[in-house]
């Protein structure tokens, strides 16, 4: 399947992830978020930036634990609050939704 941007079809897999990661743009991110019924705020975009920077540096998506700790540290929350904040931003979870919107590879081994 795919999403259409300016008449071009960008290929996505059955979970809506980009098949070719180089296709990512902020515009595409917005479309991916729409598909998840997520309204992007500054907090959302801040998280997307964090994810993309992390991936650039390490070539892996951050584990949810890493993400949660980063948010807790930045916002002065405990781990539980940070987790709830994260799921507030992305109700179906950082793996499923945040990484998708950020254009990172689809995480495996979450079973």
């Amino acid at each position, binding site marked *: 399947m795919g999403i259409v941007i300016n008449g071009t079809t960008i290929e996505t*897999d059955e*979970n809506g992830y980009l098949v070719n990661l180089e296709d990512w743009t902020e515009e595409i991110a917005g479309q991916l978020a729409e598909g998840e019924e997520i309204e992007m705020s500054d907090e959302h975009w801040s998280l997307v930036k964090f994810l993309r920077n992390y991936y650039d540096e390490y070539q892996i998506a951050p584990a*949810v634990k890493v993400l949660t700790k980063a948010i807790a540290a930045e916002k002065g929350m405990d781990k539980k609050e940070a*987790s709830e904040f994260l799921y507030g931003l992305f109700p*179906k979870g950082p793996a*499923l939704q945040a990484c998708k919107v950020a254009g990172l590879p689809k995480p495996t*081994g979450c079973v």
Partner: protein
Amino acid sequence: MEENKGASACGSHGCSHSNGGCGEKFLNPTPMLDELEKGPWPSFVSGFKTLAERTKKPMLRGVMDQLEYSYNTKMGYWKGGLVTVDGYGAGVITRYSMIKDKIPEAAEFHTMRIQPPPGLHYNTAMLRELCDIWEEYGSGMLTLHGQTGDIMLQGIDEANVQECFDKLNEKGWDLGGAGAGMRTAVSCAGPARCEQACYDNLELHLHALRHFVGQLHRPEWNYKIKFKFSGCPNDCTNAIMRSDLAVIGTWKDAIQVDEVAVKEWIEEKGVDALVNQVINLCPTRAISLEDGGMKIDTRDCVRCMHCLNAMPKALSPGKERGISLLMGGKNTLKVGVNMGSLIIPFMKMETEEDREKFMELVEEIIDWWDDNGLDHERIGETIERVGLRQFLDGVGLDVDINQVSRPRDNPYFKAKY
């Protein structure tokens, strides 16, 4: 036919039916699977066929075709993905087919893991409810139970997941664990039926899994954590090997002996049997032959359970009961299989306060692992890598000789000076 591979072919026998069965049957031919309908043991294939012919769900036909294909090619064709419900990061095992072009009816086949009641105790109302909802939204296939302890509702489209969950949740069911978080637990029958149970494992199971419900649904640890709750050291839940946190009932005082029943046992079975089947099998020689009878030296007993198992009428666990906590069990991945090791030799486990105190301890333990563990490292691997002593220090637990089978046999440590 090969030219029909864009549509659903009639399984392996090459029939040209498209998106349909063969003849009047709903299902395509599955000669390999059919072999497994023979023989006296109940056949999962027969069960699947009956269900499919009755409900005529395309997903069932697709799954049977793909399974048949696997039996022929000796390869698997499912791949992972990410499907979940609102607010949860785990609990649905996503399965997309790698050959959906070949078998489109098997394109998706997700499983919902559902937490059962502790001890796998049911009444028929619960089960009928579960079945009705599952037949409505899913395939009607289910596993009772998954090895970790879940009810596995196998086979649902992504489109139906949220609604199915809502219906189940309404009836008291909740998703089970997956990913790097708390997993669904298992309890043995416990005090509901077993005379050996040394604590209320059913209640502790419920308490613990409610305590960690957030981390079960929204995994965020290094890797998975599993609890298993056995009522006694027979460990009927295989807790020692199949859980990170094995809670095993035990006792501190003397085995309760019914002398009359002991005599009856000996009269029935003989002194040779007493020696060969009981005395000679005590691992620490706590039992001696004394004038044709048995004498148990409580201080040498390690609560292995054998003599109680051999003489159930005559012997019972002591009165001062509680739990031992063993940690670090896991299977073979990476470092090889590990049995759990004893961390807390004894804790009382009778009251709500006892259970709360235990939860606080487990929180400490998990925090330490969260801070010190590597990605995808089980807590047992972390303890081994970092050191048991460093773990005990880090969690604030006392050193106890029961935590080791022996003190070290090498002098290679730097002592205080």
